[in-house]
């Protein structure tokens, strides 16, 4: 092989860069196109209360960042989401393990879980609002969104654990603790993290909706409601709060991906 054939060129660098970051660049380009379309439609429509210009939303968004209450409201909604997520995660994982091991238990729980999966969020929120005090409603609704996702994922992960490895473990009489550590958990972790990202996005949606309906004091939901009641001033502020909720969801999803990498790496070394 000659030296020139292995010398990296600009073209090979560009290829390697696109191979690695092509997906991200494409997603970024799609967002830019979407924002450009938004701007054009808003200018053409010229009705601020229906569709504000993206630039106006940006101004409203950055103005929000300067207010002290912004952090309070965002933190309060995030805390509610994290609370409901944590409770649902623990309960879903626990019930999922039982459901994965005992198919009868899984069959018994199937109609209930199916009901919570299919029931309209608004309907559930209204019922819970009747049963519970308003401050607890968003947490409860968030729980009902996350629990079925985590429960089903954990139960599936256990039921679909690699049979060949389980047979090997049985032949060589590996204790259950080691089977859980070396077979079940490595199989389940990627599935659970992937489901957690979806569940958290659902959780934020449902929690903010519940905050709107329950009029939860000091929350993103109520701020949206206030912004929506003043549409004559334009809907830029409403869109800005919507952007906050979306960014919150994206940030948590990225944080979960980071935690997943950390867990997988640490787990590999620990076990």
């Amino acid at each position, binding site marked *: 092989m000659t030296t020139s054939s292995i010398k990296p060129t600009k073209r090979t660098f560009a290829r390697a860069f696109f191979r690695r970051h092509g997906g991200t660049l494409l997603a970024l380009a799609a967002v830019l196109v979407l924002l450009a379309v938004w701007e054009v439609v808003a200018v053409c429509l010229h009705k601020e209360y229906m569709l504000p210009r993206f630039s106006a939303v940006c101004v409203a968004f950055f103005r929000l960042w300067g207010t002290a209450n912004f952090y309070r409201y965002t933190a309060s909604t995030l805390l509610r989401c994290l609370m409901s997520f944590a409770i649902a995660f623990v309960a879903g994982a626990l019930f999922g393990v039982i459901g994965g091991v005992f198919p009868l238990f899984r069959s018994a729980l199937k109609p209930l879980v199916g009901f919570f999966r299919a029931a309209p969020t608004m309907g559930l929120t209204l019922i819970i609002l009747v049963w519970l005090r308003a401050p607890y409603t968003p947490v409860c609704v968030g729980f009902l969104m996350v629990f079925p996702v985590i429960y089903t994922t954990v139960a599936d992960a256990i039921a679909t654990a690699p049979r*060949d490895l389980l*047979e*090997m473990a049985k*032949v*060589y009489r*590996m204790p259950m603790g*080691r089977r859980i550590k070396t*077979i079940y958990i490595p199989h389940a972790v990627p599935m659970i993290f992937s489901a957690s990202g979806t569940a958290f996005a659902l959780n934020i949606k449902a929690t903010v909706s519940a905050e709107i309906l329950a009029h939860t004091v000091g929350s993103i939901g109520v701020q949206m409601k206030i912004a929506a009641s003043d549409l004559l001033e334009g809907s830029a502020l409403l869109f800005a709060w919507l952007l906050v909720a979306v960014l919150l969801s994206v940030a948590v999803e990225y944080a979960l991906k980071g935690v997943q990498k950390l867990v997988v790496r640490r*787990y590999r070394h620990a*076990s």
Partner: protein
Amino acid sequence: MRLDHISFAYGEKRIFEDFSLSVEEGAITAVLGASGVGKSTLLRLLAGLSAPTAGYVPAHQVSYLFQEPRLLPTLDVLHNLTAIPAIDEESARHWLSAVGLEDDLRTYPAALSGGMAQRVSMARAFAYPSDLLLMDEPFKGLDLSLRTRLYDVFLTLWRERKLTTVLVTHDQEEAVALASRVVVLAGVPAEVTFDALVSENTRAAVSASLREALLQV
């Protein structure tokens, strides 16, 4: 070691009906036969992975060389052996060294070639304090030169422990090269249609009659 009058069925399909087979201790018995005749089922019954509907399968501490290496993906080579409580680190190092993997103890299964992974599986089978070794076509799918090398590795390890071994294979050359007895299963439910002892002197003759027996299956 003897299987006594066992019966087993998958749904309506009877695999064994009042089937008996004795296996000589400290020797390798090769079992051949058409696909689906019950060779792997026989091993599963011996390993306790399936239970017979009737008859008696003696309980044994069993090592199993599966067709695939079945290594734990999150553990390195050494820990794939020591994850089994009955295998201590000293024994694991000894057997891994015997299969030529002493420099790959910290390698993870994803980074191993097919032959290396099967050698880890082999080391695990010999490191485990068993009194019966079951082999379910462990050399299937490997190229000829790798297979020949693995035969040598296997026979070296086997001579050290002289484990009672049941080898299931489709390859008649593999059977007569490794085993001291060759058995052919055929029919539904399965029966022994060929049974011969193999030695240096009889290898060629057994190979020829085994070919005949397999052609009739």
